């Protein structure tokens, strides 16, 4: 850390998100504004001098210095997580890294990689890996009138309720393309503000031409489905095994491949 500390840091800040204290320092004060826009939803600025995690970023927003190639660098504590000639890459990587850090180290919340919408005062969860079609399904559900909660994490509290994590949806135009961020309001959707109990968990993935014939899962197997996408599963298994069964206490859990999202939206919402 001493080597990093010796670099000249122009500005810094600290914030708290879900009980995790994070510090950020930058080589250029102008960068800080861009970073603030990319903090996890629910982050609150803090005056704490001691933090659990420290990000150090050297970025060059206008990297047009002739032949000199200046890399944009990002460190999480002592570990370099980003090295890129593109400043936008640095911002993207900071955003996903800091979200993951908060998700892993939050002590009273369990973060499950899932899309979430609200419907009739209860939540519908769609856990799944990247490229399983979570965001597409969430987009169709909110277009059909569901309330937007998240397209990235289901944030579960100790009572098993889902809290909103309403960052803009990351819509991908093709499989290898980077996600374009679109706010839920642009789809005409409302954004949730209150925690909800879970009504339905849909473990699914897209398969062209597939018919939606899901099978019901038991609560225990439902917990495994969520645990397979839980960020802190390895680091805090006690918390996960305390929260996830509670979250599924009165939930229906189904699993199966689906075809086009538009074909199943009505079935889900009825």
């Amino acid at each position, binding site marked *: 850390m001493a080597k990093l500390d010796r670099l000249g840091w122009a500005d810094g800040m600290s914030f708290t998100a879900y009980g995790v204290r994070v510090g950020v320092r930058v080589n250029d004060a102008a960068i800080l504004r861009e970073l603030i826009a990319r903090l996890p939803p629910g982050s609150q600025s803090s005056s704490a001098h001691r933090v659990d995690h420290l990000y150090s970023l050297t970025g060059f927003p206008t990297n047009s210095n002739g032949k000199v190639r200046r890399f944009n660098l990002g460190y999480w504590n002592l570990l370099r997580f*980003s090295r890129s000639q593109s400043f936008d890459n640095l911002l993207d990587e900071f955003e996903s890294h800091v979200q993951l850090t908060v998700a892993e180290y939050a002590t009273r919340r369990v973060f499950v*990689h899932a899309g979430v919408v609200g419907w009739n005062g209860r939540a519908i969860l769609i856990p799944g890996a990247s*490229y399983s079609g979570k965001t597409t399904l969430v987009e169709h559900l909110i277009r059909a009138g569901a309330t937007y909660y998240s397209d990235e994490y289901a944030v579960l509290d100790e009572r098993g309720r889902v809290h909103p994590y309403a960052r803009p949806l990351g819509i991908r135009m093709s499989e290898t393309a*980077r996600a374009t961020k679109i706010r839920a309001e642009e789809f005409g959707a409302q954004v949730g503000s209150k925690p909800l109990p879970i009504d339905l968990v849909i473990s699914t993935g897209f398969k062209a031409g597939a018919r939606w014939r899901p099978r019901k899962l038991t*609560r*225990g*197997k439902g917990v495994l489905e969520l645990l397979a996408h839980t960020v802190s599963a*390895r680091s805090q*298994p006690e918390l996960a095994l305390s929260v996830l*069964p509670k979250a599924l206490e009165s939930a229906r859990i189904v699993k199966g491949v689906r075809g086009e999202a538009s074909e199943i939206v009505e079935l889900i919402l009825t």
Partner: protein
Amino acid sequence: MKTNHRQQKPLARKEGLVIKELPDELLIYDTETDRAHCLNETAAFVWQRCDGRKSLAEITRELSRKATAKLDDKIVWLALDQLSRNRLLIDPAPPPTRQGINRRDMVRALGLTAAVAVPVVASIVAPRPAEAASCLPGGAQCGASVQCCSNLCNDGVCAST
């Protein structure tokens, strides 16, 4: 010398496990292997009685009492086999499946018994944190390995998983 399997006294492993009981199932997280298991009612019943004192025959009797039907030892063997494969028993004895008794025959034999569910242990490997977050697929442009599902960003392109 031939072992009397019915007198074997299996012992459940307890160290390094996080256990959560549900009404009809048992969830177990193994902190040594980072695997999570869901035992159905029958598998959970057997595992909870593997205390190193009860013999296979006694466990079968207790399970029969619970099911109010006379059950075959094979159902307990099938449970022990799965528990053993998932490292949930200490020093498990080799079950009949490894001694020439076909697993399919076992299930077929159990199929005749509707009084109790076939023991099932469902398992998953718990994800590493980055595996439980959005990542880029093989072929996508990347700036750092952490962005890629494969965890390898090679010349600005994610390697395939």
